[in-house]
Each structure stands twice: as C-alpha cells, then as structure tokens.
C-alpha cells in the first residue's frame, strides 16, 4: 500500500439534495437568487415555546432515481432517511458522471461518507417501549444495524472496495472527500463515492438549542446582526477517479480535488479557537498538499454557520493566513441550505466546484451587512464576484476542534 506518484484526483460527477434545490443545478440557481426556503419548526423538534426555521428538502424529490431506479425495490426496504438522502445525491452524481450501475461492478469502488445523525440509534418508540419493559418491535433496531451509511451504499449499489463512515461532526463531509482522495492516491480503489449526508433530527435541534446556537430567525452567516444557525438536511456527493483513468475511460472531468488536510484546535469541545488556529493549519496544509499558493486561490466557501463565534474565528483565520482580502471573495452557502451537519462539507464542495466552473460566485444568502468587526467584508447577498481563477477552497469547522479544508480546481465550462 504505497502512495502512487501524485496522481491527480478528478471529479467526474457530483450531486446534491438540499433545501436550496432538488439537485445541484437548481441549488446554484436558488443560491444566486438569494432564496432561503426554510420552514418554521416548533415542538416536538424544539422544546415547547421555541420555534426556529429549519431547511428541509422537497419531499417529492427524495428517492426520485434515474440510474438507481433499476435497483430492485427490496434493496430499499427498511432504509433510513439519511441513507435515502445520500442515494438521491449519488444518483445525480452517477448520472452526471455518465456511469451505470453495471459499469461500477467491474471497478473497486470506495465509499467515504460523513454523517452525524445517520450513525446513531435514536428510535424513540423502540427506546420508550424497552424502557417501560414492553417488548419492542425489533424493526427499528435491525434498520439501524443495516444502515451504516457506507456499508449500505456499497450493498445497494452492489460494489466492493474500501469504505468509511466519518463521524467527525460538522466537518465529516469534507473529510469524506479528503479520505477518498487519499484512497485513490494510494491505489486502494478505482472510483470513489464521497461526501456526506444527514437528516434533520430532533435530537440535533434540541441539542443545538441547548448550546444556544440556534437562531429563531433565518440565519445570517457573516452578517453583523447574525444570531445563530438554522439546522437543515441534505446530501452532497462527488464521484472521484484518478485523472489518468478518467481520461482513459472517456469521462468528462468537472474538476479536481487538488489538496486536503485536517487539523485540530486542541482548544474546546464545542467552540472554535478564537483565531481559528486549527483552521489556519488545515488550510496551510491543504494548499501544500495541492501545490497551490495563497495567491492561487480565487474564492473561499467558508463554513459560515451564522454563529457569532464561528464566523469571527473563520474570518480572522482567513485574514491571518495572508489571503488578499477583500479582493478574494469569501461566502457561505448555509443561508440557503441551513447547517446540514455531516452533509455540509459534501454540499459545499460541490457548490465550490460549480462556482469555479462558472467563474462567478454568488453572495452569501442572509448576509446583508458584513460584520464590520471582521478584518474584511465577505461577499453579501445580492452581490456577486467574477473569479480570477479556477482554484478555490471549501472549509469546515467542527465540534471537537476539528478543521478540514479542500483545495478544489474547476475544469471550467
């Protein structure tokens, strides 16, 4: 298992499902329009006497498959919502990659997916019955045992290869793509399906509320009036292949994952380091991994949750790294998707790639006045920027002080 001589890792397909849109194309249109399609949820999602907007996907789009429609229906029996979100985004990604299920059977397919909610057993009926001494119906437990995200995706698609479910909180999706890149570089697989997926859960709603991180209004990442995050659900997926293989197989290349790194704050269980110490390290190492200088970056898709601490630490870190701000546009897409936890890194990597390919970046939905306390102004809603190049950064910060960064290059067009 030795690293191949720096193969370039190409993105040959991508797919998303989020409140911003049923697929990646629709999401980009809605982000450009500044749409925040949230729904006000109250109890039982939140404690009584509290309500907050949440970003839910369009229910009709869930499980509307193209290529995956040929899979036998019983493969989807007992399938959880997070898994269904992942498969919906995978379906779009495979379609864009021009890849059939049959084609996948002859390749080693790695699956690296991030999640937070999708790895927990939180069925309340089962738990309550068990606690009250009533024999619980075993179906929810068996569903949980058959719902490890990567395992079930491999089984549903009928593919073999390395797999990982990364449970690194809100950076999990970014780490999924980074781990898949490493597998391809080491020759552990031929194709990788990578990203993240998460459903909205009332445990997360109650939990984030307890941490006083939830905004009762639509979230406003990077805005001077920001007062917290909104939770959301979704999935963001990339199909990766070594560039040489992709070209040999006649695949159209949408871009490349040039660099990846992960670094820790070693500071606090839930709060970021005030100067984004770990983020600075992650970005620096991701740039080095990709052989890209700071001057080579033409945009940053930030984590930008809308919490006072995250947005301040993140902008501080970007400034201290020496990026040419404000000439370099910095945005967050969470104003359009909500914070989708384990899915966020996957969604944002796809949005970054698509903005780079378009050469134009839309402003941050929900941000009307960039916080003047930041060392620079982020790109606000209704603004846009034409990009000077095709390489950008997508970055994630997580509980546990984990920070991850991807250097993404668009192929253009």
């Amino acid at each position, binding site marked *: *298992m030795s*690293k191949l001589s720096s193969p370039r890792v190409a993105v040959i397909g991508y797919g998303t499902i989020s409140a911003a849109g049923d697929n990646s194309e629709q999401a980009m249109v809605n982000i450009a329009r500044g749409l925040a399609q949230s729904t006000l949820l109250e109890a039982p999602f939140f*404690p*009584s006497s509290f309500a907050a907007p949440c970003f839910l996907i369009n229910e009709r789009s869930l499980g509307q498959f193209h290529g995956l429609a040929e899979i036998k229906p019983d493969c989807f029996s007992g399938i959880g919502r997070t898994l269904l979100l992942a498969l919906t985004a995978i379906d779009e990604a495979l379609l864009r990659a021009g890849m059939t299920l049959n084609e996948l059977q002859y390749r080693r397919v790695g699956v690296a997916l991030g999640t*937070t909610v999708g*790895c*927990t*057993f*939180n069925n*309340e009926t089962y*738990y*309550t019955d*068990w606690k009250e001494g009533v024999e619980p119906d*075993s179906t929810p437990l*068996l569903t949980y*045992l*058959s719902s*490890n995200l*990567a*395992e079930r995706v*491999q*089984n549903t698609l009928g593919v073999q290869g*390395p*797999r*990982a*479910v*990364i*449970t*690194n*909180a809100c950076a999990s999706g970014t*780490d999924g793509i980074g*781990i898949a890149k*490493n597998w391809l*570089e*080491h020759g552990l697989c031929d194709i990788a399906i990578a990203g993240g997926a998460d459903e909205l859960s009332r*445990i997360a709603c*109650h*939990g*984030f509320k*307890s*941490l*006083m991180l939830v905004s009762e209004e639509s979230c406003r990442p990077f805005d001077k009036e920001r007062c917290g995050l909104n939770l959301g659900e979704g999935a963001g997926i990339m199909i990766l292949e070594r560039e040489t293989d992709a070209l040999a197989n006649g695949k159209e290349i949408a871009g490349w994952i040039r660099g990846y*790194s*992960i*670094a*820790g*704050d*070693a*500071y*606090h*269980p*839930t709060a970021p380091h005030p100067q984004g110490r*770990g983020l600075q*390290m992650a970005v620096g*190492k991701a740039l080095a991994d990709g052989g890209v200088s700071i001057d080579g970056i033409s945009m940053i898709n930030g984590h930008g949750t809308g919490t006072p601490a995250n947005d301040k630490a993140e902008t501080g870190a970007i400034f201290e790294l020496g990026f040419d701000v404000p000439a370099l546009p910095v945005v967050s897409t969470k104003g359009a998707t909500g914070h989708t936890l384990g899915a966020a890194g996957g969604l944002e990597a796809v949005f970054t790639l698509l903005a780079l390919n378009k050469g134009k970046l839309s402003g941050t939905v929900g941000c009307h006045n960039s916080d003047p306390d930041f060392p620079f102004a982020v790109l606000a809603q209704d603004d846009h920027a034409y990009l000077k190049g095709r390489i950008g950064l997508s970055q994630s910060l*997580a*509980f*546990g*002080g*984990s920070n991850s960064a991807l250097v993404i290059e668009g192929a253009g067009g």
Partner: protein
Amino acid sequence: MSVRISKLYCSDLSDIVSPPELARQLRRADDFIRLGVLAGYETIKEVLEKDSKSADSYGLTLGTSFGTMETNFEVLDQIISEEPVSPILFSHSVFNAAAGYMATVFDIKGSVLTITDFSFPFFRALEHGYLAVLDGRLDHCLVLQVEIYSVLLQDAKDKVSSDREEVWQPGVVCWLLEKDLVKDVPVYCIESLSIESRPLVGDEVETYLNFREKMEINDVSFVCTDPLATSTLITRQMEDTRAPASLDCRIAATYGVVKLNLQRH
C-alpha cells in the same frame, strides 16, 4: 519505510483508574471519553513527558461500532421527558467527542478522525492511521477502538445471541503508530493490511449482535464473541515477549475478512 507499533494499551472499563493529573479534564467526561483519554494517556505518556513533540505531527483515528450510545440515550431521555437538554451531555453524545477531548488533553493538532462501522472498526481506523503515517501526513498516530455499548444493546443481543450469558465488556484498545526511523527497541511493524467486505443480506445484520469473528494468528484459531475481542487479542499477542517475530492475522466473519501481517524488527 514501514510503520511501527511503538506502544500498546488495552483495558476493560472496569479496570481503568483515572490518574489524578487527568482529574480536572475528565471531571465531566462520560465513559466513552474517559476510555479514549486514559488509553491515549497510557500510550503517549512517555512522549508527553519528554515534551519534544510537534503537535501537528501527531494525530489520532478512533474507530467504534456503537459510539456514544449510552450518552445518546441520556439525551433522548431528557427530550422525551421534556426536560431541558444538558449542553454538556449533548456535546458528549456527538461521536467525535472522545477524539476531541483527546486532542485537547494531549495537544494533538494533526488529523483527528472518528470512524463508525459495525464491522472491523479497529482495522478500518488502523488503515487510516497506517496510510497517514506511511505517506508522511503524520509522524505519530494513535489508533483506537472504544466501545461502551448500552444496556438496551445488551438486551437486544441477548435475544438473538446463542450465548446469552456473555456480557460485552466496555473497553478500549489503543496502538501508537510511528514512522520506523528510530530502531531502539524491536517492535512490531505493519507489513500489510487488507479489509474485504461482504454484503449482508436480510436477517444477516443480526450478526452484529450475535457476534462471531473467527481469528487465526499464525494458524492458531480463536473465536471472538465481542466487538473488541480481535484487536485485544492481537494486542496481547504483541505484548507477549515470547511471541514469534511474525504475526500473521486473519479475521473472518459473515461481513468480511481482515488480513494483517506484523513483523517484529
């Protein structure tokens, strides 16, 4: 370059004793976090005492089957009974809480990952740690498996298990992987590692409760009946000074096969 396993540690929860110097950091910790931190402490204590580490050259990969299940249920209890959710409890219910604690306590600033899988979680974590050291992203990587299970899980296991008497013991296994540069003491090095997965069909998922992994180490067979057993057994073998210089390990289960070759040099 090969990757050496410089330090080893494994313990049941019932056997661990928190050293006083960790009392402050662990005052609010649950068992999942406590197991991770104490295993990390026992494994890199000497390195910390030398105080010569570069924080970003250290990383950790934690594998788990069931994660922080008991803490998840405590949060669920609060929600169901309409009590205010404790922010500390919620943050501890996130699966990477133990890894985050370890990073903070030991000032680990390199890659810190948590991987969740019902099948071979230790070896999946080992694969990541091994690659990270092999390609130079890390000089030192702690690889762990932490399991605390839950009473609910034990009850469910008892319903499907052929061995109802057996109780899965919460515990931890931890290895410190390092670049094989300093050959001061002979230790085992990872020569090869492969993980093959086999899809489970229908009720076969019950195998994650009715747990059976067959392990062979140099043609000696063991039947392992809990999720920590194989990594614990290999650890014990490596700790045995009479163990042969080569350990050829093969673990087979309904859901796949792991092959691990270790050579002492």
